[in-house]
């Protein structure tokens, strides 16, 4: 498929470009002249310089979320952080209990870790969120049992961008003596996080969702009260034994710089993104049979998830080839399944199939948004002309009453 010259990138939730300031810091670590040593080399200055750079980055990551740098464990990304948090806690506390509570709209990294733990004999309760994507905390409370060892609820959902009240969840879990993990891959740098205040025990971070590089992430592991983990990656005993493997200095330095920038610019950036998001929303919301997925209030500014009824999502993405958007989450988009997140919200399959996720970011402009609005309106019209469902809807046929030929 031919590439257009300037596709507009509106898929910042899938991954972000590295900020030029981040790239510059990374470059300095990659070359012979620079800081390329192995941070575990304790015997020469190449190693010490690398170690100093890694520790500076640790302070920067901790700084964004008001944690102690010693509570930050480097990993290869949020997926590994989620795996380490869930399996690490479950394996360490197996004698205390074998019940875990999570939600149906978590990222695959959490859900698939839970499935693995189920195979190992653990029991998992999957909460269903309300129609707006938010959890009813009373339902969460009533799912807790005496043998519950861990609750894992993401801070911001990757598909619909809704923000869960993790401060309130932390109060509930702490009172019950249950550990609380939150996947913050989509929230760090977008929503203020204060881990000195919030009673979150473990938190997963990603670099490449906030203008840092791919291949690096972190897991916050609380020191007071102390959280214990069983390591999932064994080796040279790096990261205080919780995660072995040579630390990729350039990537860690990049993550640190990305978190530093996020801390300084988050408020301004959020205000700008909210304006752009509302511009996009206002441009699309008067199209007939358009549905916004997820709560609009408790939501990060950069996310808009829209279902265009009677238009199939993949064909719409194909029509929107001048822009990079996503239907469902990137990890599942190779499959033909409709988004499990939207289905968990109770959306009918056809609306789930018709959804597009627009995620705006640091390099999105008002002109980009205007172009997107104009193009989407035109292409939705075109595809509805092609759609037998739209035709039936126009004729007043109730599609839910039609008996569809089994296929």
């Amino acid at each position, binding site marked *: 498929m031919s590439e257009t010259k300037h596709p507009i990138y509106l898929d910042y939730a899938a991954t972000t470009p590295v900020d030029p300031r981040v790239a510059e810091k990374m470059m300095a670590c990659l070359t012979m002249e620079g800081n390329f040593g192995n941070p575990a080399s304790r015997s020469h200055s190449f190693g010490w310089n690398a170690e100093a750079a890694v520790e500076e980055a640790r302070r920067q990551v901790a700084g964004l979320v008001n944690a102690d740098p010693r509570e930050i464990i480097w990993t290869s990304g949020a997926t590994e952080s989620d795996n380490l948090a869930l399996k690490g806690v479950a394996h360490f506390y197996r004698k205390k209990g074998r019940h875990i509570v999570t939600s149906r709209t978590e990222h695959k990294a959490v859900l698939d870790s839970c499935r693995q733990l189920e195979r190992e004999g653990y029991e998992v309760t999957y909460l269903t969120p309300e129609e707006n994507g938010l959890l009813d905390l009373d339902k969460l409370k009533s799912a807790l049992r005496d043998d519950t060892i861990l609750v894992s609820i993401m801070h911001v959902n990757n598909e619909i961008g809704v923000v869960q009240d993790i401060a309130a969840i932390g109060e509930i879990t702490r009172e019950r003596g249950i550990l609380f993990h939150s996947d913050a891959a989509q929230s760090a740098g977008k929503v203020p996080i204060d881990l000195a205040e919030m009673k979150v025990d473990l938190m997963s971070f990603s670099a490449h969702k906030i203008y840092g590089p791919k291949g690096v992430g972190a897991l916050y592991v609380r020191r007071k009260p102390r959280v214990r983990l069983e390591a999932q990656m064994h080796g040279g005993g790096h990261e205080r034994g919780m995660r072995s493997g040579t630390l990729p200095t350039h990537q860690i330095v990049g993550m640190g710089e990305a978190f530093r920038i996020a801390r300084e610019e988050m408020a301004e950036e959020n205000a700008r993104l909210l304006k752009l998001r509302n511009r996009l929303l206002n441009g699309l919301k008067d199209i007939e049979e358009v549905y916004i997925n997820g709560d609009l209030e408790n939501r990060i500014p950069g996310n808009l998830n829209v279902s265009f009824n009677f238009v199939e999502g993949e*064909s719409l993405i194909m029509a929107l080839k001048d822009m990079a958007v996503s239907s469902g989450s990137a990890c599942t988009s190779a499959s*033909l399944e409709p988004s499990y997140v939207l289905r968990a919200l109770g959306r*009918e*399959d056809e609306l789930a199939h018709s959804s597009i996720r627009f995620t705006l970011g640091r390099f999105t402009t008002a002109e980009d948004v205007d172009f997107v609005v104009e193009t989407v309106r035109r292409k939705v019209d075109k595809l509805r002309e092609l759609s037998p*469902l739209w035709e039936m809807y126009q004729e007043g046929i109730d599609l839910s009453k039609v008996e569809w030929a089994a*296929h």
Partner: protein
Amino acid sequence: MAYSAKVLDHYENPRNVGSFDKDDRSVGTGMVGAPSCGDVMKLQIKVNEEGVIEDAKFKTYGCGSAIASSSLLTEWVKGKTLEEATRIKNSDIAEELALPPVKIHCSVLAEDAIKAAIADYQKKAGA
């Protein structure tokens, strides 16, 4: 996923989009698939007195491959007798459009659609 040039061509410039009056006795309508599966194909044929398909139209809700499969099929069936049209196989469509394995079901759906349209016509003609 990378689409073949032929899929893109049919997707960008779909042939024979539209509808016939489904109550017309010379029209056969096949509607297959389900919205919950992500594909619905409506294929209509207009058959003359010699039993030759003289026109065909489609509307499809589905991915690019589904749209291309139905668009291609409307081109192919025009001028064919009903008997010839029933011999079109999904593998012919898949091959022509170079569909990847995950999209073969689109060609299957197209084959189902023409069979359903022919059956609908014959049912009406027999009635």
